[in-house]
């Protein structure tokens, strides 16, 4: 069990750490809203450190159904998420340097837990925004929870939620972390 990881495995981990850092600056998840007068679609794009897209316009429309306003302040995760990612990258680098199998297992475990937490977090916000509607809003709609991936219809809007480049790269990072398992098993 104390067998050291090969250099190829370590290289794979270093690449994973580098790519993980890059994901900080890429969009991870998004939602696009379509309506008859918004054929071009309105975007909410979530980066680990910021929100992008037509947030103000989405907010000005959401107030009709009494939905809380989106803003970077309303998502505290955006303040510390980049640091968690950077910390994770650091752990990967350390594992690569020490080339210890046990650390690798820990890393994989952390990644899986982090992924589950991340998806749970998105889900939690979707539930919170979709169900905590102001009862005094001009338009009354039933509480709703948009899916994490896929289509949903609310009032005159069709929403499309999707994972974006950052998440795809994240998946690649995960595969690169798994790579040593396969590599070392063959030897």
């Amino acid at each position: 069990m104390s067998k050291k990881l090969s250099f190829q495995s370590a290289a794979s981990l270093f690449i994973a750490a580098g790519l993980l850092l890059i994901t900080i600056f890429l969009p991870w998840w998004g939602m696009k809203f379509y309506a008859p007068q918004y054929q071009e679609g309105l975007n909410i794009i979530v980066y680990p450190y910021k929100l992008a897209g037509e947030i103000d316009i989405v907010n000005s429309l959401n107030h009709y159904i009494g939905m809380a306003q989106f803003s970077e302040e309303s998502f505290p995760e955006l303040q510390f998420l980049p640091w968690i990612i950077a910390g994770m990258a650091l752990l990967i680098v350390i594992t690569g340097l020490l080339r210890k199998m046990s650390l690798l297992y820990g890393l994989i475990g952390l990644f899986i837990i982090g992924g589950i937490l991340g998806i749970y977090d998105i889900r939690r916000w979707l539930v919170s925004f979709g169900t905590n509607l102001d009862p005094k809003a001009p338009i009354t709609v039933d509480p709703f929870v948009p899916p994490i991936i896929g289509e949903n219809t609310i009032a005159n809007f069709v929403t499309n939620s999707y994972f974006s480049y950052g998440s795809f790269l994240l998946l690649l990072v995960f595969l690169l972390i798994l790579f040593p398992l396969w590599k070392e098993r063959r030897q």
Partner: protein
Amino acid sequence: MKKLFSGAGGILAGLLVAFVFFGSSSLGAEEQALSSENKSNAEAVYVPHGEHDEYYLINSGGHSGQLFVYGVPSMRHIRTIPVFTPDPATGYGFDKESKEMLGGYTWGDLHHPALSETNGDYDGNFLFATDVANNRVAAIDLEDFHTVDILEVPNIGGPHCAAFVTENTEYIFLPTRFSLPFDTEYASLDDYSEEFRGVMSAVTFDQESKEFDVAYQVALPPWSYDKARAGKRDSSDWAVISTYNTEEATTNLEINASQADRDYIVLFNWKNLEERVANGEYEEFNGEKMIYPEKHKGDIYLVPVAKSPHGIDVSPDGKYFIASGKLAPAMTVFSFEKAFEAIENEDFSGERNGLPVLNYDSVMEREVDPPGALGPLHTQFDERGNAYTTMFISSEVVKWEYETGEIIDRQDVYYSPGHLVTPHGDTAEPQGKYLVSLNKIAKDNFLSVGPSHPESMDLLDISGDEMRHLMSVPVNPEPHYGQMVHRDVINPFHVYEMDESNPYAVYDQKDTRIERDGDNVTVYGIAMRSKFIFDAASERPDVIEVNEGDTVTMHITNTDFDQDIVHGLGIMDYDLNFEQMPGQTKTLEFVADKAGVFPIYCTNFCSALHQEMTGYLMVKPKE
């Protein structure tokens, strides 16, 4: 009796069958040809949903004081731009800035829109227009199609043949239609020739600060200046103006200004005039730098032309200027090159009002007289050496080659065309694809709306050898001149950007407030879908409370940064209404001189709850 009826019925039915059968068979071919031509014309002008027209046509609105934007080839009316006339639809003339710009005038006679140019072609930055009625010039910013500056020009009498711009928009020239008493505000018409002058102004426009300035003026003889153009390419330092009433008549001009056999084209070198001004060779006059051409010779010449000319146009290559007769049936082509030569050789036939008159025969290139064509007015060009001239009296457009004078085609229009316009048709780079004739009379072409019929436009396809009439459309009065510019040249923006340095703008609801300073109440409010917030901290955030006699200033920001979401704010019984475009902050100022409760409401339909977008102006009566 019954038999009689059925007999008559039978005969009628037979007649009907015969008529339908034979009638239709004898007319068939012609009708079919007509219907397929109509169909292909309809296809030529049809712009499907989601697609855009190829050209903007920006038409002057004459005494409506407005500009009208159409799309070509669909001929759809897209926008009205208020310039010299207040416009409740956009709140123009009600908010503080535009109200100050209009200076208390409620109308203007908007003539001859002129797009700004770079290297002799439209650059899509600004459009200028003049007000013949009140001696003004206006600039319209083509980034948002709104009027940004109006200048009232002193010493002039109706800038009719303006605005015309030089090749790189160095100057916008404003020669005037009426000559007026010069040194004095009142002079007897008996002393017209001595005391009156027709002043021309050279105006500059700073595209950064978006402001006009009068650079200099020229005290021309007391004649009427009718149409004008700047030269192009080799002639770009020069400009030409047509004149009438060189008779210097003061009454019944219809007859008295039509007596002399020849009137003149004024040919002047604006670069020379500019230099003269730089050298201080001018006199201060009524706040302006005035040049007296009889004292400073060498910049301005007269070219004799058939009596009472109207249109004058410069060919795209800048080689020729073409004058059209109005009363004479012919177009006269003059050569710039020959004129320069005549000036050099002092080939003058005399002098008039201190200005040298060039020898007609030395400058004239050819006279073009299409048989039976009457009343030539204005000429535009394509890129293939063709000129297109409107014939007011014979209601047609004549296509001819300006190098040879050969008549190529003639096309009826409906009716009495004044100006005409081809894409970039007065620039050095015309695009001869379409031609729009701006007609003064429509008569019975459209559904009747009483004794007054609309003005109209004819759209022709001029891409081939023969002109093809595509359609006629009724239009807003009065299409006086227009310019057609390719859509790629114009780049409007869609939402005003946040301007944190604007002290009147409020972007956050929490910052809305109403401040009182003595009798002055200032509102820093926002308009958003679908409410007004004047003071977020107040129990009723959409209510403004003032005392009778207070001066109220409302700075309202539209915080919907969303294309096409426009809010308007109207105050009942106060004759007030102004608009805020997406992201824009505008200011309204008024005295609350009527006590009572006055509903405020959004005038520009903005959303499903637009009807609820209201508030109150509460004016407490004086004790």
